């Protein structure tokens, strides 16, 4: 059983670095990954039985759902938006932020018209307003969401808010909080069964460090 390697998808960026440290502190270190200027894509440590790779944060769930990675770390926002068929084993309590509705400071919501919502997260926004029986028009954007209400493209935005600085600088403010977000450890359902022991050890070691 010890020959089994666990494939781990890490989200590129600051959150991923934190997560990697967490894994390494838990006894799943990997020297290769710290080599400067490396062009490698996959980093293995057969002794610890792990293999890491960096992927775009929004792709982690896809790698895990399709079994290319056994486990991975993804933000709750991604899990809510794409509802992948995976196990959500731990809340890592890092990368904390909120999914919010934000609007211009002088915004007044009038219920007598369709609300225009700009967002990167159409599923989350759609479900939130459906739960309030609100008629909305979703405008799917891929970046610079804050621009939308300023230019009158939308009434409000649904986006991730960490400190609120960007909002403030653009004369926007949080209108409502939809759900708190943090990084989650997710696992492929089949891998969790066939590599059960190794994944269980890894999860319990990580859990000690949350």
């Amino acid at each position: 059983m010890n020959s089994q390697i666990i494939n781990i998808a890490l989200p590129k960026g600051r959150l991923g670095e934190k997560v990697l440290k967490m894994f390494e502190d838990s006894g799943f270190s990997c020297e290769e990954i710290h080599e400067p200027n490396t062009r490698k894509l996959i980093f293995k440590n057969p002794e610890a039985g792990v293999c890491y790779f960096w992927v775009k944060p929004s792709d982690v769930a896809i790698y895990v759902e399709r079994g290319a990675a056994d486990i991975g770390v993804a933000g709750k926002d991604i899990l809510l938006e794409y509802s992948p068929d995976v196990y959500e084993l731990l809340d890592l309590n890092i990368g904390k932020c909120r999914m919010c509705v934000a609007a211009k400071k002088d915004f007044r919501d009038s219920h007598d018209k369709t609300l225009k919502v700009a967002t990167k997260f159409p599923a989350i926004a759609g479900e939130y307003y459906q739960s309030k029986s609100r008629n909305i028009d979703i405008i799917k954007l891929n970046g610079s969401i804050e621009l939308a209400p300023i230019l009158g493209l939308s009434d409000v935005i649904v986006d991730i808010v960490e400190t609120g600085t960007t909002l403030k600088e653009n004369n926007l403010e949080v209108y409502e909080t939809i759900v708190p977000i943090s990084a989650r450890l997710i696992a492929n359902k089949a891998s969790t069964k066939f590599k059960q022991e190794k994944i269980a050890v890894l999860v319990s070691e990580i859990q000690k460090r949350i």
Partner: protein
Amino acid sequence: MLKNSEIAILKLRSLYESRGYTHFKMSKFEEYDIYAANKDFLGGESIVTFTDANGRLMALKPDVTMSIIKNTKDGDGLTEKLYYNENVYRVSKGYLGLREIMQSGLECIGDIDLYNTCEVISLAAKSLCIFERECILDISHMGIVSYLIDELSVPDDIKKQLIKCIAEKNVHGIRSILSENGSKDETLVELVSLEGNAEESFEELKKICGARPLHQALSELESVIKILTAGESLAKIRLDFSVVQDMSYYNGIVFQGFINGIPEKVLSGGRYDLLMKRIGKSKSAIGFGVNVDLLEDIFECSSEFDADIALMYSDSDDTAKVFKLADELSNGEKSVRVTKKLPQRAKYKQVIKFCEHNQ
């Protein structure tokens, strides 16, 4: 030559026929109404619809179970045992396209006693073993899950969230939902955390259920585990309560099968008396489906060569002689591609030029 996936389907067929299940063949098109009324049964998957020549709204069959139920007679006291092998159609998740899925499975409809339950679950386990790889059958009981959730007396939308968390083994999620609703109950957490072999986890399960009136469900599970683990160990049978199916359709034992090398569940099924009731039938029913398409990954190691021999000829060659040589070379055993020009990237074990051979 049969492909491995075709052999697998044949093996499944003969497995089901060995227990007296008869083949059920159905139309690809059906009236949309029946699916519209029971949409959640398909796990929220979208249905492909169109109108027929009379303007009726029709569906490309998204599932086999409901068609079979519709066609069963009620009130004759008989137990029907049917198997199927059909293509079903769904709208794919994520991008706007249609998917065709090959599904194999069986349904047992009528008086579902302990024998029939065990027969269906053991056929499910044997279906997984046909593929000669490590396999696992996870079993759960909706009766127990829904009792423990109902006991918390929370509103329906919270129940739905709890079920989602159970399916995700999301222990932190369960705890936070419960604490928001003023409960510190750990029963669901314990239930989801059950692991290990079926007999051991059953003992744990008994402790979790304690004095609750769940004797019937527990004894059903106990008998099934006993009978299934008694014979030659086939698939590894485990208790796993993260296997949850929609509570408005499934009521008893539910199960899911996994094969090592395939990243998602290959088999899924359970006891669905409530769906029967919704379609207006009084009989009980249990069944399962195997997603045969998923098996392609472990089977179709596509052959290294396009054919054994490529026989090249030109316009000046005598066609009758080329024909004869092709026959001789093939001899009923080898594959011979007769061609004037070799396709790019094609690979053959041997390339023979007719003009050279004929000299």
